[in-house]
């Protein structure tokens, strides 16, 4: 690799390889990552099993003597100062055309794995970038990273494929730590989900997104006067319930089926996902749809097709915006959302005017 093609960025522990495409923003904001290390439970030290996303229920990671934790969502980016927090900084190479979620997870995982040799990482490889994250970390930390492929559909071959991998994962985790009795198991914080800042109400915006770091987008939109009718995000409020898995522990096939039947991820089967989103739009009574897409995310890019089409079919105004991870209200985003909301407001006012029989009915206020 010639040095000219490698550039150090302001990221903590992250290099970008190659050249940044014109017009795109480098995604290297990695804030302080607060991943707790091993914890003690009933006098026994539990190693931590980190996971990178909400594709699998936490019990999958925690059932074999590990404390399951999501890699913490980093704080909003700020100036980078002081010593780098990583044990061996700047070791992971990430191409600039990588989604910011994967970039932050790479840095966070590197940090977590470098800190304690007992801890491990499970990577549900829902997309190519996440799968390659698993590869890079597995090469760096041999036998401490387990990547498993998660299919997009729930047909029998897909269910069999995932159930084999769930069994392999259980075996791998059990070999790393002795199983914990059910009554000794600690609660986990493996679902990194946020909640609605205010109760959802009909007639507002329905937000579709991949992973969002927090409820910042919801609060921003609500702050501009448009209520939130619902959110569909893999880190959104409804995801926690979708991660519940009541299939028997040893029945991997039942677990796999249950996991794959839930389509609250943009990478899911197009037809099933479309039906699911149509149902959610109906039940929430949304008046507008906003798709908040992470850059360099293929599943979301194709998901926008369905969502735009669903919105158009229902006559709902639709806006697609690109957001970062962690989320921050940037200038361009502010302009686009405010313009969209203004157009909604204007549209509503004009339709009120249309409803008037006579312009004389219009009360002029000054």
């Amino acid at each position, binding site marked *: 690799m010639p040095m000219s093609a490698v550039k150090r960025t302001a990221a903590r522990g992250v290099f970008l390889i190659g050249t940044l495409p014109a017009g795109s923003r480098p995604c290297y904001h990695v804030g302080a990552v607060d991943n707790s290390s091993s914890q003690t439970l009933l006098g026994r030290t539990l190693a931590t099993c980190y996971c990178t996303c909400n594709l699998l229920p936490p019990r999958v990671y925690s059932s074999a003597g590990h404390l399951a934790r999501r890699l913490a969502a980093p704080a909003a980016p700020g100036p980078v100062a002081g010593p780098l927090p990583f044990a061996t900084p700047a070791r992971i190479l990430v191409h600039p055309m990588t989604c910011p979620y994967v970039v932050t997870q790479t840095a966070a995982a590197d940090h977590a794995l470098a800190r304690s040799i007992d801890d491990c990482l499970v990577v549900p490889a829902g997309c190519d970038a996440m799968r390659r994250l698993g*590869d890079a970390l597995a090469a760096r930390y041999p036998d401490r990273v387990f990547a498993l492929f998660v299919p997009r559909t729930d047909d029998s071959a897909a269910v069999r494929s995932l159930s084999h991998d769930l069994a392999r994962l259980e075996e791998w985790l059990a070999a790393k730590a002795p199983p914990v009795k059910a009554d000794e198991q600690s609660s986990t914080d493996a679902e990194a989900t946020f909640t609605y800042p205010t109760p959802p109400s009909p007639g507002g915006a329905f937000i579709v997104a991949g992973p969002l770091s927090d409820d910042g987008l919801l609060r921003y939109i609500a702050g501009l006067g448009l209520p939130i009718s619902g959110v569909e995000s893999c880190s959104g409020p409804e995801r926690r319930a979708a991660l519940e898995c009541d299939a028997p522990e040893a029945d991997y096939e039942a677990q796999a089926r249950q996991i794959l039947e839930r389509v609250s991820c943009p990478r899911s089967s197009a037809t099933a996902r479309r039906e699911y989103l149509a149902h959610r739009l109906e039940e929430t009574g949304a008046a507008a749809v906003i798709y908040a897409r992470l*850059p360099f995310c*293929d599943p979301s890019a194709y998901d926008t097709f369905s969502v735009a089409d669903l919105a158009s079919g229902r006559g709902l105004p639709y806006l697609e915006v690109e957001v970062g991870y962690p989320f921050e209200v940037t200038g361009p985003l502010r302009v686009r959302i405010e313009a969209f909301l203004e157009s909604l407001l204007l549209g509503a006012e004009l339709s009120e005017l249309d409803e008037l029989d006579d312009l004389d009915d219009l009360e002029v206020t000054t």
Partner: protein
Amino acid sequence: MPDLLGDTLAATAARRAAVARSRLSAFQAGTARRYLENAALVASLRLFEPGAFVPWVSYLFPPEILASLGLIPLIPEVAAATLTGSPFRNQVEAGVNRLHLSRDTCTYHRAALASLREGLLPAPSVCLGTTPFCLGKECMLDTVASQYGVPFESVQVPWPPDDGPAPAEHVAEVADQLREVHANLATLSGKRPRMDRTVAYSNRATEAWRQLTQLRISGEVIVNARQAFTFLFIGQIVLGTGAGAKGFERLLSERGRKDMVLPSDNGGPHPRLLWLHTVPHHDHGLFDLIASRGGGVVVEETINQELLPLDPTDPFPELARRLIEHPLWGSASRRARLVLELVRSNRIDGVIHFTHWGCRHGAGSLPVIHAALSGAGVPFLAIDGDALDQPGAGNGQALGQMESFLEML
């Protein structure tokens, strides 16, 4: 531009003219590449005829499954590369600009989708995916299937182990899926399977390719890997057909491979380069620069694929094994290991990775490949680019990188 779709007089004439031009070019060249390009074009244009059964398939979908039913695959990536290198390019580009799809996605897929919307490609009758390699292609095929209301089936292929052959149970599992897809396709298309004939044709073609690969590895023949890469794409269309068998067998004669062989005087080109991932299809600037410095891209990554003969009574296990053990599938560590093997067995001086725009699979494996090659002291260059760029389109930076790399070598 003339319309290629439909049964109008103009469309029929345009298709016939394209075939005549291609046939003349193949006849004049007399090479395997031209012969196969012509065969692929003639077959593909049948997809544009009214009432044709059009399977949109993954670039790794076993072509024999379709050939046995007399079906011709429409591979979106091949279609995109072909159309962007044709007089239809402007229309494709205009369609891409109109497409409501993020520009950071793979250009092969955006161009194929845009071409479909612009009426430059026939609508699918079925979409068939394979989990290798990329998710973007699966999302695209599924989206197209959903929009056109046609079935989408995807073959779930487990990752191969980092070292060693695919486990027998994985091969059996994938073979079962392939059998099922084959049976479903027969029902959907209403065609009668002729697998015995297809297997015979496919084995003739792969045997010819295997022999050429042996000649390349032994150093007896030095092939321009840029041209060899073309066979990967074309093979996905013609493998399992009579024309495919004849075309590949032409590679065994000197005349048949004359347009892809590099001069071997003075020990052949230096530096000898290994090319990873896809190639720029229309912009030959990088290859011209390498040639002008006396070097040559002599090996492509996919040369590593082992093609054993198909069993005429049950070809599915071997087709399954090929899918699982494909050199680009599996972990980045496996890919890096295979690349290092190629470097050692082919006396490679340097490795180039062409990171295609929007390819998460390619870009994502760079850290591991970079570390493995650096650790082994093998010079490595990763170039960002767009495989569908037109000649000279913004390649200054890539040319600069390549020039420095060649100077260093």
